[in-house]
């Protein structure tokens, strides 16, 4: 029974405690760890499917770049607020139409939002933004410009980090708030109240509505979705290129590593995965037990 007494292997060892067995306490049987299971239920990734999924991350990065490009144009007076508002309106109407088409394909059962309700919320948003744009314009006047830029940069980064890429519709509250905070900061550095209004409407379009449309596209038209992502990435790099060549280069490198290099790493490192399971694992409750309560 003690750790050092000689084993008498006449009877086979059993993995039981209730029986006093003629083996020392530190005896290690052939069957030691026989119930160990490795890499159970591990997903095997295929490179191009991972690249496709990573495309969403890339296009969101481009969205931020595009937004910054638009802001740069506005700040330098190369783009008038009327022009931006008009383009935004056209894009919004086109996007809304597309969204309606894609939605009607899938959800016949549940109650759809009426057009009137959509129009109502759009009107509320726009009128409030318009009404508050003079206030927002002067909001950060007492803050130094460096601080505003730094804050915007941090917030846009936070937006990218906290964005719910797996389920972007509706956009997560943290990521949306961070993006809108950054937009308010940037918009308040523009020359006029109308500029601010145009910039904020554009921000709502890019950060709040665009992810919803893209999610619909991903669900219903995966091929077109890939095309849109590629288009967005090229558009982002191109747009930034007209303002800052260095920035465009950096963005291109970032996009390349996120969409091509990181999936490669994931697929390569997958083979080093060594996940162990065994009888010591805590059992998981898979059943829906709330039915007993509600």
């Amino acid at each position: 029974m003690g750790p050092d007494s000689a084993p008498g292997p006449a009877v086979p060892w059993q993995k039981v405690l209730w029986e006093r067995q003629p083996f020392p306490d530190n005896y290690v049987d052939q069957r030691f760890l026989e119930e160990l299971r490795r890499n159970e239920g591990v997903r095997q990734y295929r490179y191009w499917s991972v690249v496709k999924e990573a495309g969403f991350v890339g296009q969101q990065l481009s969205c931020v770049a595009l937004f910054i490009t638009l802001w740069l144009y506005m700040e330098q007076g190369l783009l008038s607020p009327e022009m931006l508002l008009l383009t935004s309106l056209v894009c919004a109407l086109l996007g809304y139409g597309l969204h309606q088409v894609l939605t009607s394909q899938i959800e016949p059962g549940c109650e759809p939002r009426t057009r009137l309700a959509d129009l109502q919320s759009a009107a509320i948003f726009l009128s409030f933004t318009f009404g508050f744009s003079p206030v927002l314009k002067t909001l950060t006047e007492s803050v130094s410009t460096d601080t505003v830029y730094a804050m915007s940069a941090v917030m846009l980064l936070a937006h990218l980090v906290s964005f719910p890429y797996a389920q972007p519709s509706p956009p997560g509250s943290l990521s949306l708030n961070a993006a809108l905070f950054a937009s308010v900061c940037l918009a308040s550095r523009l020359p006029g109240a109308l500029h601010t209004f145009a910039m904020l409407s554009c921000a709502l379009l890019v950060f709040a509505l665009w992810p919803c449309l893209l999610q619909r596209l991903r669900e219903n038209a995966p091929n077109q979705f890939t095309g849109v992502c590629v288009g967005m990435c090229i558009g982002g790099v191109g747009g930034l290129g007209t303002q800052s060549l260095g920035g465009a280069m950096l963005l291109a490198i970032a996009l390349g590593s996120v969409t091509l290099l990181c999936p490669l790493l994931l697929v390569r490192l997958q083979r080093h995965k060594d996940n162990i399971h065994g009888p010591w694992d805590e059992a998981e409750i898979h059943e829906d037990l709330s039915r007993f309560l509600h």
Partner: protein
Amino acid sequence: MGQRRRVANPPSQGVAGARTDCVRVSDRKHNICMVSDFFYPNMGGVESHIYQLSQCLIQKGHKVVIATHAYDRRKGVRYLTNGLKVYYLPLQVMYNQSTATTCFHSLPLLRCVFVRERITVVHAHSSFSAMAHDALFHAKTMGLNTVFTDHSLFGFADVSSVLTNKLLTVSLCDTNHIVCVSYTSKENTVLRATLNPEIVSVIPNAVDPTDFTPDPSQRQEDRITIVVISRLVYRKGIDLLGGIIPELCLKHPDLHFLIGGEGPKRIVLEEVREKYQLHDRVQLLGALEHKDVRGVLVQGHIFLNTSLTEAFCMAIVEGASCGLQVVSTRVGGIPEVLPEDLITLCEPTVRSLCAGLETVIAQQRSGSLPSPASIHARVKNLYTWKNVAERTEKVYDRVAGEEVLPLDRRLWRLRAHCGPVSGSIFAFVAVLDFLFLLLLQWLVPDRLMDDAVDATGPHRLWRQETIVKQTKSRSHSKGATSS
């Protein structure tokens, strides 16, 4: 003590040590210090394990002291039954009764205990206890032999387990011997700490069978009572219980549940009871004191355990010892604990547990279950503390003959065993600990520290008291050596 002994006769510790410490080593009596954050007045499996094991080791003539942290106003030294001395050290509690660890701050106090009590073996308990790991670390620095008992299972899947498993690897890589409470627990510990399985012994927990005797007269025969005694927490599967209760109560109108224990999941059971109007059939007893457990158990016909993870599970042994038919989930070490005819094992799902319970209920109605007395008779000799103490004593004997790694080899072992980064960090910490020990030895040399009065062990003073009556013959035979 250990450091001093090593300096006195460095190379051949086993033989030379036996000659100098002839009294202690020749009749193989050890001076053991049990260290854990978890001890009375805190209640639980680890606490009673330490207490019962210490009592049995005292009966066998070893000297045992316990070191734990202070509980509220319980500080300093306390004596328990048979002169078991407990040091409640004033260390800061951080989380869940576990102390904060800095790797250093507990050294002065623990060194004081180890030197004054002339400790030879430090036995730490529970991987959740920071104090236990600290004590192992310091004991190795002081050149004392170390034993560690792991009472719990741990996964590998998330970040927190990766970190704690790394710490366990560091803590156990130069520990002399490890004790686990079941074979599953041994596999788990060997994997977590990347140990050589040869230095891990399996010594199950035990139950005092005289505390848990059946009493069928307490049962109400017009109903079938299912008893559950467990803390009401997620890991004990209380959510499953919340699903089982309505399923079975709707089918069997004479079924009653008796639930002892307290915890955050109590609300689940209360909601179920409320929704299905089962106030007269589901009794929630709240927290039970250990002495009251038997009184609840004997009222039941079936003992139900719904744990999601369990290294050994004393509760089912206690239930079976009281003559109840046990139904339990098949998780962790539970399948090893009771023979198949005494336990019905189910998968951890509501459906499987309900099916298992229905089978047992049907057997109960047809009267085909064995009688409580016969179940008790089978269980009572399976797990006894005497047996645990004998087997632990053998571990101590083995460990006492082993060498404690000197500092240079300890550093090498840490680097080789725990990876280049954490190995180097902890090797550095070990060096600092050693320097700190040297400083303490210079400030207060070991020879200036008074030896504590032995209450237990070969030179015990407690023998005049009650213990002498219980073990009269034994103490007479030892009397010659001690006087």
